[in-house]
C-alpha cells in the first residue's frame, strides 16, 4: 500500500486554514434578495391573524408570504407546511417570510408583522404524547400522503411504529435468572455545526431552478422539489460548495423549499434564506430526544437471554427524517450483543418540539446510552465486571441481529478484539475505582456500540474521471465535502488503484447535480464505502481504456501492460511505455494521425441485498454491514460538590482498514468530543409553553477547546471484504459510546443510577436527593 493508510493532507486544507474556502452564505450577487423568517414564539398555538400592513410600508419589500397553501412537504409523511398554516406546532416554526432587497430591510419588515396567536395545549414530551388523552399535534394525521412504510395512527400522536419480534420472549424470560428494568429520558438538542444553514434559489426564464445550499443531500433537494411542487426534475440544478459541518442536521430539506417558494413569488429573482444561530437551533431540524424503557434478562453466567425495549422518540412537530431514525433505532435496538429473544416497539411521536433530524450516529448515539446504562445495571446485579459481561455477550459472526440478519466475518466488525484493546489501553485490570481522598474519587466506566446504516435499499453512488493534458486526473463525485476529508480519501483510493501520486489527482470539491453523478446523500458514514466503490470501478474503466490505446501504440497485447506512476508500460520492460499525458487525450502519431480520444472513466455503485423490514416482525436486511466499537472513560468525581471532570476518554473502533490515519483519528476524536458535549452539557430546556429557553450559544454550550479530556484512540482492522480496501465507516462511532461510558462511571462514583442526559452536576444532586 503506497497511499492507503497514509496521513495525506486534505486537499482543501490550505483554503480552509487561510479562510478562502467558500460556503453557501459567502456567495453574493447584487441582484440577490433576502428572505427573513418570522417565527413562532410558542410551541403550540392557533394563528388568529397575521397583520402585514406595517411591514409592506418598509422600502425594499418585494413580497410577504404567509398562510399560503403550498403543498404539504415531508420525507416519509407529507405533514409539514412550508410556512405554517392555521396553527403553529413548534417554537421557531416559520409563520411568515418577508422578501426584500437587503437583509436589513427584510428584518425590519419582519419585525413589523403582527401575528395574533391563541395558545393551544402543549405536548411537551414523547411520553406525554403517548398518553391516551394527550392533545393532538396533528388532528388529520391519517389523511396525509405518505410512503408505504410509514403508518401514522389517526387520533393519536404516533407518527410511526416499528416492531421487532425475534425469538420467543417468554422463553427468554424463563431462561433468565436475573432481570433489570430501567427508564431513561432526555430532551432534544442541537447539532451546533459551525456553519448555520443557508440556501438560495433562482428560477430562470427557461424554467431552470438553480439552488445553492449547505446540504448533505443536494440530490435529495432536487428530488423533493420535483416531488412536492411538480417541477421537472431535470430542470432543478443544485450546487453545494463546502459545508461547515453537517452531523445529520443538514440531511433534511427545509430552507431550500423556502428559497424556492420565495423566488417563485418574486418572479424567479434569486433569493437567499440564511439561518441566524438562533433559527439554526430551533427553526431547523434538531437532534432527536428519547424516552425509553429497557428490560433485560440474563442467565446465571451473565448471558443475556431476553430484551424488551420501548423507544418513544421525540419526533417533534413534523415527522420528516424522524421516521427513519425511529426505524434505525429499532434495527439495532439491543446494542452489539447476541440476544435471541427480542421485542422492541419503536415509536416516532409527534410533540410540540422543534422537529427532529438525524444526529451523528443516526439513533445509535441515543439508544447506546440507554442500552449501555442497562447493561451496567445488569452487571451490578449479577456482580459481574462490566467489561466482562460485554465481552461474553458481544455480537460475533454467526449471530443474528434483531432483524435476523445472519452475520459473518465481513459484515460485522470484531467487538471482542475492540474490548480487549480497551482493556489494555485503559489498564482496566488495575481496577475501576481509585479513591484519592475522602472527597475525590477516580472511576472508570465502559460501553460498547454498533451501527448499521439503514439507508434506501437502492441508494446509488457514481464517479467520473477525466484527464488533463499533463496526465493528471480530475475526480468528480456527488459526495459533499462536509468537513470529514472524504474527498481526499477518494483521491487516495484512486491513487492506490492506479499506483500514482495522489498529488496528481484533482478533486472537484463543489457538487453540481447537473454535471456530477449522483451520490445518494453524504450521510450514514457511507461516503467512503459507496463513493469509494464507484471510484474503484471508474479506475478499472480508465485502466481498460488506457490499455486499449497503449496496446495499439506499443503493439503489445493488453495482458502484457501494467499501469503505474502515471504510465502504461510493458510489464517485462518498463522502459517501453507511454505517459498518461500521451494518451489521456488520445494518442497522436508522428505523422499527425490520432487514435483513442479523451479518456473518460465512469464508475457506479448501488447497495445490494437490502430489503425493507417486515411490518409485523421487523425481519429484513436494513444495511450492508455493522461497525463496532468499545469505549472507556475515566472521571474524577467530587463527592461533596457532586461535580466531576472527564480525565481520559478512549475509543477503540474496528475500522476495517484505516485509509488515512490522521483523518481517521480526527474523525474519532472529533466525534468523542461531540459525544462528551451531548452526554454532559447539551440539551434544550423547555418551558410549559414548549419554548426552547436556550436557543443561543450563550446558554447552549458545545464543548470548548480546553475542556476536553485526554483522548486515546485505537483501531482494530477486520476488513469488510466488499468495501474499498476493507474500510468500514468510522465517522460516527467515536460519539456513540461516550454518554453510556460517562453515565456508567458517574453512576458508580455517585452511587445512584443516572438515567437522564445531560449529566450535569445538578442532575446528580437531584437524583441523590430523590433517593434519600
Amino acid at each position, binding site marked *: 500500500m503506497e497511499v492507503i493508510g497514509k496521513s495525506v493532507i486534505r486537499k482543501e486544507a490550505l483554503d480552509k486554514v487561510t479562510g478562502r474556502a467558500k460556503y453557501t452564505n459567502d456567495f453574493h450577487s447584487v441582484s440577490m434578495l433576502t428572505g427573513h423568517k418570522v417565527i413562532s414564539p410558542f410551541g403550540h398555538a392557533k394563528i388568529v391573524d397575521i397583520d402585514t400592513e406595517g411591514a409592506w410600508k418598509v422600502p425594499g419589500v418585494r413580497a410577504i408570504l404567509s398562510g399560503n397553501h403550498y403543498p404539504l412537504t415531508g420525507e416519509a409523511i407529507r405533514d409539514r407546511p412550508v410556512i405554517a398554516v392555521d396553527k403553529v406546532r413548534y417554537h421557531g416554526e416559520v409563520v411568515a417570510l418577508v422578501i426584500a432587497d437587503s437583509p436589513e430591510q427584510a428584518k425590519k419588515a419582519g419585525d413589523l408583522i403582527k401575528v395574533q396567536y391563541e395558545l393551544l395545549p402543549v405536548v411537551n414530551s414523547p411520553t406525554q404524547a403517548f398518553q391516551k388523552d394527550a392533545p393532538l399535534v396533528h388532528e388529520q394525521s391519517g389523511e396525509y400522503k405518505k410512503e408505504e412504510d410509514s403508518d401514522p395512527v389517526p387520533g393519536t400522536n404516533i407518527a410511526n411504529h416499528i416492531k421487532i419480534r425475534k425469538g420467543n420472549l417468554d422463553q427468554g424470560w424463563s431462561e433468565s435468572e436475573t432481570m433489570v428494568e430501567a427508564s431513561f429520558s432526555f430532551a432534544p438538542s442541537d447539532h451546533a455545526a459551525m456553519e448555520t444553514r443557508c440556501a438560495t434559489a433562482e428560477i430562470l426564464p427557461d424554467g431552470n431552478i438553480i439552488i445553492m445550499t449547505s446540504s448533505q443531500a443536494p440530490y435529495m433537494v432536487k428530488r423533493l422539489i420535483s416531488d412536492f411542487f411538480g417541477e421537472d426534475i431535470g430542470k432543478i440544478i443544485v450546487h453545494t460548495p463546502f459545508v461547515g459541518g453537517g452531523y445529520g442536521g443538514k440531511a433534511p430539506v427545509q430552507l431550500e423549499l423556502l428559497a424556492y417558494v420565495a423566488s417563485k413569488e418574486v418572479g424567479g429573482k434569486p433569493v437567499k434564506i440564511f439561518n441566524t444561530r438562533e433559527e439554526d437551533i430551533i427553526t431547523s431540524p434538531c437532534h432527536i430526544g428519547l424516552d425509553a424503557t429497557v428490560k433485560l434478562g440474563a442467565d446465571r453466567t451473565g448471558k443475556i437471554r431476553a430484551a424488551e425495549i420501548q423507544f418513544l422518540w421525540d419526533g417533534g412537530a413534523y415527522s420528516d427524517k424522524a421516521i427513519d431514525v425511529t426505524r434505525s433505532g429499532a434495527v439495532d435496538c439491543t446494542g452489539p450483543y447476541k440476544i435471541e429473544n427480542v421485542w422492541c416497539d419503536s415509536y416516532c411521536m409527534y410533540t410540540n418540539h422543534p422537529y427532529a433530524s438525524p444526529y451523528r450516529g443516526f439513533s445509535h448515539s441515543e439508544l447506546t446510552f440507554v442500552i449501555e446504562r442497562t447493561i451496567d445495571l445488569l452487571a451490578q446485579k449479577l456482580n459481574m465486571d462490566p467489561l466482562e459481561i460485554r465481552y461474553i455477550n458481544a455480537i460475533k459472526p454467526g449471530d443474528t441481529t434483531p432483524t435476523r440478519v445472519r452475520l459473518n466475518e465481513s459484515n460485522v466488525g470484531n467487538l471482542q478484539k475492540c474490548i480487549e484493546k480497551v482493556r489494555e489501553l485503559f489498564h482496566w485490570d488495575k481496577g475501576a475505582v481509585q479513591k484519592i481522598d475522602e472527597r475525590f474519587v477516580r472511576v472508570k466506566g465502559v460501553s460498547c456500540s454498533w451501527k448499521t446504516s439503514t439507508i434506501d435499499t437502492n441508494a446509488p453512488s457514481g464517479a467520473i474521471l477525466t484527464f488533463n493534458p499533463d496526465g493528471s486526473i480530475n475526480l468528480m463525485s456527488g459526495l459533499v465535502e462536509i468537513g470529514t476529508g472524504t474527498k481526499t480519501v477518494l483521491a487516495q483510493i484512486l491513487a492506490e488503484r492506479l499506483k500514482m501520486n495522489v498529488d496528481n489527482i484533482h478533486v472537484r470539491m463543489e457538487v453540481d447535480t447537473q454535471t456530477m453523478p449522483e451520490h445518494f446523500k453524504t450521510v450514514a458514514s457511507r461516503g467512503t464505502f459507496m463513493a469509494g466503490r464507484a471510484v474503484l470501478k471508474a479506475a478499472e474503466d480508465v485502466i481498460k481504456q488506457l490499455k486499449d490505446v497503449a496496446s495499439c501504440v506499443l503493439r503489445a497485447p493488453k495482458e502484457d501492460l501494467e499501469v503505474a506512476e502515471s504510465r502504461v508500460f510493458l510489464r517485462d520492460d518498463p522502459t517501453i511505455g507511454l505517459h498518461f499525458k500521451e494518451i489521456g487525450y488520445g494518442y497522436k502519431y508522428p505523422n499527425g494521425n490520432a487514435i483513442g480520444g479523451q479518456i473518460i472513466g465512469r464508475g457506479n455503485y448501488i447497495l445490494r441485498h437490502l430489503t425493507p423490514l417486515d411490518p409485523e416482525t421487523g425481519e429484513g436486511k436494513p444495511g450492508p454491514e455493522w461497525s463496532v466499537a468499545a469505549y472507556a472513560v475515566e472521571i474524577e468525581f467530587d463527592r461533596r*460538590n457532586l461535580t466531576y471532570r472527564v480525565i481520559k476518554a478512549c475509543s477503540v473502533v474496528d475500522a476495517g482498514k484505516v485509509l488515512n490515519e490522521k483523518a481517521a483519528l480526527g474523525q474519532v476524536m472529533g466525534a468523542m468530543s461531540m459525544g462528551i458535549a451531548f452526554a454532559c452539557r447539551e440539551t434544550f430546556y423547555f418551558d410549559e409553553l414548549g419554548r426552547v429557553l436556550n436557543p443561543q450559544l450563550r446558554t447552549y454550550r458545545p464543548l470548548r477547546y480546553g475542556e476536553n479530556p485526554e483522548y486515546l484512540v485505537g483501531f482494530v482492522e477486520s476488513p469488510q471484504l466488499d468495501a474499498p480496501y476493507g474500510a468500514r465507516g468510522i465517522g460516527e462511532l467515536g460519539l456513540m459510546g461516550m454518554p453510556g461510558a460517562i453515565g456508567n462511571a458517574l453512576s458508580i462514583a455517585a452511587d445512584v443510577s443516572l438515567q437522564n442526559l445531560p449529566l450535569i452536576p*445538578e442532575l446528580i*444532586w437531584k437524583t441523590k436527593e430523590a433517593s434519600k
Partner: protein
Amino acid sequence: MLPFDFEYYKPETLKEAVDLYQYLDQQGKRPMFFSGGTELITLGRIDLAYTDAVIDIKDIAECKVLQVSGDHVLLGSTLTLTQIEKANLFPLLTKTASQVADHTARGKITLGGNICAQIFYREAVLPFLLADSQVLIVGSEGKQVIPINEIFLGQLRLRKGEFLVQIATESRFVRAPFISIKRRQQWDMGYPLITIAALKTHDLVRVAISGLCPFPFRSKEVEAAFNNKGLSIEERVEGALEVMPDPLLDDVEGSAEYRLFVLKNLLFDVLGALDDVRV
C-alpha cells in the same frame, strides 16, 4: 447583523461626552455610552438593545487610567478585562475578571461595560464592593466621587447622561487575603451558577455574590451571620444562608434549590480559606 443604523461619536474629553449625550438625547436619539461594544452587538442583533447614537468613550484619557496613585489603585472604566488581568494591580479583581465570558470576549469587554451591563451577573463589581471602593462618575453636573456601596445597589444607579469614569481602591484592600470562585452549570464555560468573592480585613470576612439573585450583591446581614464567631462553622454558614436576599434565580443554569446547595459548599470553602478554620 445589527438591524438598525446609528450615529457614532468618539469624544476626547469628559465634557464633550456629557454634552454630546445631552444634545443627542434632546434630539430623541436614545444615545448610549459605548466602550467594548459587546452588548450592543450581541443584544442588538436580537432586539434586546437599541440606540440611534453611540458615544464611544474609549479615547477619553481619564477612562483609560491604569495606575497606583498614592495609596490607591485607579482603574479606568474602558480598560478591557484582559488589560486588567495583565497589569494585575488588584489580584482579587484579576481572578474574578478572568472568569468572565471567554478569552476572546475579555479582550473586548471593559470594566465599566461589565459593571454597567444589561446582563445582570456583572461579576467585575464584586471585588470593588468588598473593598469599599470609590467610583468617579461624570454627568451634566460635573464629576462626582461616591462610595460604590452607596451607588451600586444591584446595579450602578446612574442618572441619565452619567457614566462611570474610574474606580479607586485603597491599597490595603488590594493586599488583603482573598478568594474568588466561580461555579457554573458544568465545567469552564457559561454564566455563573454562583460566583463568590471574599476578602478578609480586620479579622472579618466580607463576601459578595453574583448568580444567586438577578443582581450581584454584598450583604451586611450575610456578613454579620458569617462572622458570628460565637457559633460553629456550620451554624455560621446556615445563618448566612438564611439571610440571603430575594428573589433567587431559578432558570436554565440551575434551580434555586440547587444554587443554594452550591452556595452552601462555597461558603464553607470561603471560611476554609480565610477563617483559619478547616472544615
